[in-house]
């Protein structure tokens, strides 16, 4: 029971990581191919990536949720 929970959470970690890497690749492609005016897309992707880390890896909702 306990260990199955653990496996679920570890798989979630992989999913988040995969998403973040995909974002990074898009960012890289955008950054290297578009020479002008790319910053809105880049900053949007950075915000999404940062949110994913804050939410899934750093568990920011712990701050306002009572108990796990």
């Amino acid at each position, binding site marked *: 029971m306990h260990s199955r*929970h*653990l496996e679920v959470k570890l798989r979630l970690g992989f999913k988040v*990581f995969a998403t973040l890497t995909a974002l990074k690749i898009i960012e890289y492609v955008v950054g290297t191919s578009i020479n002008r005016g*790319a910053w809105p897309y880049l900053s949007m992707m950075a915000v999404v990536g940062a949110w994913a880390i804050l939410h899934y890896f*750093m568990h920011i909702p712990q701050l306002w949720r009572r108990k796990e």
Partner: protein
Amino acid sequence: MNMVTSITTDWEDRGAINRVGLWLFILSDSFLFIAIIFTRFYLQGVQRPSELNQLLGFVISVVLLLSSLFAYRGETAAAYGDIRRFRYNILATIGLGSLFLVGVGVEWAEGFRFFPPSTGFGTVFFTLTGFHAFHVFTGILGLLLILLPGQKKRLGEGSYWGVEAMVKYWHFVDVAWVFIFPTLYLVS
């Protein structure tokens, strides 16, 4: 005012108190990076020298993301009392973090040749990567500390605050890089 009643009831909940303190510290520290990112745009606009190795920047970004994944796995394992898995994952995090630092070192070596610290871009580049690398370095030190036997005993007792704190800090360093990477390498 729901928040009020809920907060006042956990009067002695040490973990929750520590967590608030850590988040406040992270909030404060993030403004250090905000200030330097502001400096980058203020001094240099979106200029970027063509010698900058974007591919290397991309690779070390992925390395740091991967280290964050292992840090997450380590913390989760610690939360479930799986000490063996916790140790492997944290060791992997430390390894990848060190690899990141090596990558930054390589870039610094290139940077000294093409855009030395006494030029405009060099100033912001070395400052921003330097402060970030310092955070990575302290993060590695912290992760080493939680591998010491003292923490193992605490994990056995079911308390993993030290692990949680260091891993959160590590993720924060990653978040900072998520913004620094496009700021330095991609905008133009």
